[in-house]
């Protein structure tokens, strides 16, 4: 249930002001409270939205983390597309990508 842990970490971050503050100051320490793989931990700490999307994090959670990191909307979409290009299709979770990685549906 490692994807569950990563998702829960981002869920907490999205709703808890204390976690938000810690995320901005010491993200690695915040991540230590959750049972993550090294790959998940690295993606989280380095704000690697594309990788987290490929790891299966639901976009409805990821979107808010992206906003918190100051990632603009079209850039957020592009990073997910780039994630799929670099790391391959979404590995787990419930949503697969249904358009091409070079296809920009909106927000181009």
């Amino acid at each position, binding site marked *: 249930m490692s994807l*569950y842990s990563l*998702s*829960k970490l981002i*869920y907490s971050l*999205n*709703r808890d002001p204390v976690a938000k503050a810690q995320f901005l100051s010491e993200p690695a320490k915040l991540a230590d409270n959750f049972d993550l793989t090294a790959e998940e931990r690295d993606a989280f700490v380095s704000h690697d939205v594309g990788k987290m*999307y490929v790891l299966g994090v*639901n*976009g*409805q*959670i*990821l*979107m*808010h983390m992206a*906003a*918190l990191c100051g990632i603009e*909307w079209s850039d957020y*979409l592009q990073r*997910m*597309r780039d994630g*799929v290009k670099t790391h391959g299709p979404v590995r787990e979770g*419930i*949503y697969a*990508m*249904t*358009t091409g*990685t070079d296809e*920009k*549906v*909106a*927000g181009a």
Partner: protein
Amino acid sequence: MSLVFTGVCSHAPGITGREERAPKDQRDALYGAYAEMRDALHAARPDAVIIIAAEHFANFFMNNMPAYAVGMAQSYQGPIEDPEWLRIPARTQPGNAELSKRLIAEMLQTVDVAYCEEWQFDHGIMVPLHFLDPESKLTVIPANINCQGPPLTPLHRAWAFGEAIRRAADSVPERIALVATGGISHWPATPDSGRINEEWDRTFLDKWLANDRDGMMDYTDADTYAEAGQGGFEIRTFIAAAAAAGGPGKLRFYAPIPIYAVGCTVAEMEIA
């Protein structure tokens, strides 16, 4: 007293957060439709407005994911998102815990709702409220249907939830309004964001406007996902509204607006 108003509308965060990036005529027509619905809602003089949302992991996570939930607090805060990002200022909305409790007790006779003595609004409720109650004057009772994390509640139970809301509203002396919010086809927050299946949307809307129960039940989640994206699961909120209202619907606005990432919809339904 009874259910005095039922409406449905979209809640995509882009509607406010990326307002200026849509074609101006579409933006203006959509905003105008929300304003018309606002006037109709206030003209119904509700003592409380139940807002059925399909929230996005703001209050509910897979550690305890209720199929149906209803708020039971004296006030609610929102948005949970960065107000700058959503472009909706933080606000406190009045609730009514005692009225919630009476409504929930009645709903529990047929639908197993979770009750919530606290609840933070995300864009699923904030976007509708921003248009329908700009001054935070209405007493709101939030409700939720899990449309995000499978296993999802089946469509016929969403209908049963709507029926329970109607029965509960009719059982209290207060005037109750109902607003359901959700997208029809859309692929929110994914690289597919902006995809909209207009044909699918219009077919669903036709069934909804006719309050065709059997037609609305005739979707599997697999088909919905394939043709209407994960956002299409939110048709549950429209279905609950139709069950509660019982009458035919009236469409104020529909247009696919890719930068808002949803087929934007504003509609009302007669109480029958």
